[in-house]
C-alpha cells in the first residue's frame, strides 16, 4: 500500500497523538528498563559503567598479575616467565597492555615491550604472555600488569539468586501477604457500607460526618504512630497479649486507608442514578438488599480501583509494619527483609534493583487480576448511556 494513502486513512492528528503517546510511554519506561538491565549486571560492572553500555561489551581495563619470580625458567642467558594473564575460566581478547597504572594501554597486544633493565614483555591477544629478563627476577609477588580487554556483554542471575535465597525471605513474603490481604479487604468492606449510608440514607448530622471524614484525609500518618502504639501497649498489657500483632497492623492500615476510601466510594455511589435505588425501595427492598444487589455490583470499578490503591500501599509499606509488627527476623515484611539485605550503609545497587523486580511481581498480578473488572465496569456504564 502506498504510504501516503495509509497516512490519509489514519489521519494526521491521530498519527501525531499516537506518536506522542508512544514517545511518552518510552520516556516513562526508561527508568524501569534501566533498573531491569542493572538487576542483571554484577556489582563491579554497575560501579564501572552505566546500564546503557551493558549491551555493547565495551573494552574494560583491568589489572592482572604475572607469574611469581619463583616460577621463572632459565633459557640460555635469559630468565623467562610465561603463562596466561587470564585466570582459569576467563576469556577475552587483549587489545592493549601496560605496566604502569598511569598508562594502562601503553603497548599494543602482541607488541614486544621493552621495560628497561633488560626486561621484555609481550602479551598476545589470547592472553598468553612471555616475560623475559637477562638476569634472575627478584621480589616475591608477580609483576602487576594492566590490560585493556574487549569483553563480550555479560549478564548474570546472581543478584536474583542472592535475594531469593537470603535467609528469612520466604517468611517475610508470607508475612507481607498476611498483612496486605486483610488490610485491603477490611477497609473496603467497611468503607463501602459507610459510603452507601452517607450517600443514600437520610439521617441528621450526615453532612458533618462527611466533612469530618474529608478532614481526616489530611492527618499525617506519622503523627498518630506514638499514640496508637501506646494504646496498643495498654490494651496488650490489660489482656496479657502481645501488643504487636497482625490484628493490630490490620486495624492500623484500615484506619489509615479508610478516610480516602470512604470519600472516593461515596462520590462514586452518590453518582449512581437515583431512579434505580428509588424503584428498588418502592419494590420493598431493604437498605441491605439495595446495597448488596444494586450498589455493590454497580460500584465494582470504584471498589477495584481502590483495592489496587490500598494493596499497593500496604504491600510497599515499611514504616507502619516496622512500628506495629516489630523488627524481629520472624516479623519482618518483605520490604523490611529486602531493606535489611542492603546493609547498614546501603548503596548496593545490584541487590536494590533485583529486589525491586521481585517485590513488583505480586502487585502486578493484583493489578492485572482487577484490571479486568475495572474495564468491564467502565464499559457497562458507557453502553447504558445513562
Amino acid at each position, binding site marked *: 500500500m502506498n504510504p501516503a494513502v495509509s497516512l490519509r486513512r489514519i489521519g494526521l492528528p491521530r498519527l501525531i497523538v499516537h506518536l506522542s503517546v508512544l514517545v511518552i510511554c518510552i520516556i516513562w519506561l526508561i527508568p524501569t528498563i534501566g533498573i531491569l538491565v542493572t538487576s542483571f549486571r554484577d*556489582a*563491579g560492572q554497575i*560501579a564501572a559503567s552505566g546500564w546503557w553500555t551493558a549491551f555493547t561489551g565495551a573494552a574494560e*581495563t*583491568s*589489572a592482572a598479575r604475572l607469574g611469581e619470580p619463583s616460577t621463572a625458567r632459565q633459557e640460555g642467558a635469559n630468565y623467562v616467565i610465561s603463562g596466561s594473564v587470564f585466570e582459569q575460566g576467563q576469556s577475552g581478547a587483549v587489545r592493549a597492555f601496560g605496566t*604502569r*597504572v*598511569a*598508562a*594502562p594501554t601503553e603497548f599494543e597486544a602482541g607488541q614486544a615491550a621493552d621495560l628497561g633493565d633488560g626486561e621484555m614483555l609481550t602479551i598476545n591477544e589470547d592472553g598468553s604472555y612471555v616475560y623475559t629478563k637477562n638476569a634472575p627476577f627478584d621480589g616475591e609477588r608477580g609483576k*602487576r600488569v*594492566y590490560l585493556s580487554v574487549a569483553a563480550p556483554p555479560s549478564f548474570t542471575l546472581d543478584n536474583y539468586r542472592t535475594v*531469593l*535465597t*537470603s*535467609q*528469612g*525471605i*520466604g*517468611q517475610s*513474603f*508470607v508475612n507481607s501477604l498476611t498483612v496486605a490481604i486483610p488490610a485491603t479487604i477490611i477497609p473496603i468492606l467497611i468503607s463501602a457500607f459507610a459510603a452507601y449510608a452517607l450517600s443514600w440514607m437520610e439521617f441528621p448530622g450526615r453532612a458533618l460526618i462527611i466533612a469530618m471524614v474529608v478532614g481526616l484525609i489530611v492527618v499525617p500518618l506519622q503523627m498518630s*504512630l*506514638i*499514640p496508637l*502504639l*501506646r494504646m*496498643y*501497649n*495498654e490494651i496488650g498489657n490489660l489482656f496479657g497479649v502481645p*501488643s*504487636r500483632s497482625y490484628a493490630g497492623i490490620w486495624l492500623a492500615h484500615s484506619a489509615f486507608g479508610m478516610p480516602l476510601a470512604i470519600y472516593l466510594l461515596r462520590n462514586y455511589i452518590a453518582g449512581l442514578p437515583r431512579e434505580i435505588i428509588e424503584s428498588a425501595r418502592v419494590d420493598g427492598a431493604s437498605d441491605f438488599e439495595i446495597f448488596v444487589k444494586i450498589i455493590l455490583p454497580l460500584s465494582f470499578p470504584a471498589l477495584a480501583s481502590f483495592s489496587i490503591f490500598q494493596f499497593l500501599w500496604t504491600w510497599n509499606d*515499611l*514504616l507502619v509494619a*516496622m*512500628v506495629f509488627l*516489630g*523488627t*524481629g*527476623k520472624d516479623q519482618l515484611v518483605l520490604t*523490611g527483609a529486602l*531493606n*535489611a*539485605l*542492603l*546493609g*547498614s*550503609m*546501603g*548503596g548496593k545497587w545490584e541487590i536494590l534493583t533485583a529486589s525491586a523486580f*521481585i517485590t513488583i*511481581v*505480586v502487585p502486578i*498480578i493484583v493489578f492485572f487480576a482487577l484490571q479486568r473488572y475495572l474495564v468491564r465496569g467502565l464499559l457497562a456504564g458507557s453502553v447504558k448511556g445513562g
Partner: protein
Amino acid sequence: MKTPFWIGTALAVVLAGSAAAQELKFAPGQDARFNWKSYEDFKAANANLKGQNLTLFGPWRGEDEVLFNSVLAYFNAATGINGKYSSSENYEQQIVIDTQAGSPPNIAIIPQPGLLADLATKGFLTPLGQENADWVKQNYGAGEGWIRYGTYKGKDGKEAYFGFPFKADFKSMVWYVPENFEEAGYEVPKTMEELIKLSDQIVEDGGVPWCIGLGSGGATGWPATDWVEDMMLRTQTPETYDKWVSNEIKFDDPAVVGAIEEFGKFAKNEKYVSGGVAAVSSTDFRDSPKGLFGIPPKCYLHHQASFVPSFFPPDTKLGTDADFFYLPTYASKPELGTPVLGAGTMFAITKDSPAAKAFIEFLKTPIAHEVWMAQSSFLTPFKGANPDAYANDVMKKQGELLTTATTFRFDASDLMPGKIGAGAFWTGMVDYVGGKDAKTVATDIQKAWDGLK
C-alpha cells in the same frame, strides 16, 4: 509461572534457614587467640538466667547484623538467655517511638550520644552505675573520653552514666593503594606539610590526589563534617574542640572557620579532587573510594572512616591491595599530640532486667570483643582484648592507634543537637563546597543553633 517457583524456593529457604541460626563461629577452647577463660567465667557467673528473654535493637543491618549475631550467640550459649537482635532502617526514629509508646527493647544500641542524651533526659534509660563507669575508665584506651560520651543528665537533672561503648570506628584515616604509591615512587607522609606536598607532587605528575564524595541521599554532606572535625583537632586544642561541640565557642568563631578552610584547601582545589570541585558534593560517599582502584587511578588518596573497606571492589586484600595511614598532624603544631577522631556505638538499657544487666557484664569480657575482632569491621579500645585476634594487620594497626591514643574525641556532629549535627552542619558543608565562603556558612549554622534555644 513465576510465582509458584518463587514460593517454593522461599519455603525451602525458610525451612533450611531456621536450623542454622545459633551456631558458634569459633568453637570454645580451640583457638589460643581468644580468651576462653573469660567465656567460661562468665558462663559460671550467670548460670541462673536460663530461659529469660532479651531484646536488643540497633543500627546494624545486613552483614553487620550477621556479625553482631555471631557475638550474641556466645552470650546466648553461655547464659541460656534467649537474646534477639533486630534493626530497622529508621532505627533513630523507631527507638524514639518505642520508648515513648512504652514498648522499648531491653537494650538500645545507638551510635549518636546526642540521641541517647535526649532519651536519658526524658527518663527512658536505666543508669549503669558508677562501677561500670570506673571499669571503662580503667580498661579502655582514652577511657576518660569514652565515659564522658556515655554520661548524660537523667530525668532528675543529675548526671549519671548511661551508655556503655562497644565497637568503635576510627575516622582519622587516609586510604591509598600501596602499589600505586610504589609505582609512582610516593612515600607515606608523616606530617600535614608532607601530605600537602605529596598532593602537589601528584598534580605535577599529571594525576589527581583526592577522591572526595559527600553524597549520601538525605544525609549528603556528612563526610565533610569528619574532615572539618579532623582539621579542628589538628589546628586547635582538644578543649577548644569540646567547647565547639557544646557551643561555648560559636560556630563562626575564627577557630572553627579556620578548620573549615583547612578542609577547603583540599576539597575546593580544582586540581586536587577527582572530577573537580563540582563533583565533590554530587559523588556518593560509597562510590567515591572506588576511584582509588581505577585503572588509571582516578585518585591516590581518600579520607574515610574504618568502615569504608566494605565499599572497596570485591577481592580487595587489605594491607596489600589497599592500606591506610593516619591523617598526619602539622609538624608546626607539636603541642597537639596525635589526636584521634572516632565514633562508637553505645549500649544503653531501655528496659531493665537481670538479662540486660548480664549483657552489659558480657560486654566487659574480652571474648565478646575478640569474636568480632576476628571477623571484620570491628575495632575496640578495650585494652584487655588480645590484639592478635584482629582478622588482619590493617584492623590491628587501627586498633592499636585507638588503644594508645592520647587524645580521643568523638565525632562532633554526633554530639551536637540533631538539627545541627545531622542538619545544618551537613547542608552548610554542601553550600561551602558549592561556592559559599567559610565565614558565611559558619554564621548560617550558628544562626540555626541559636534558633534552637
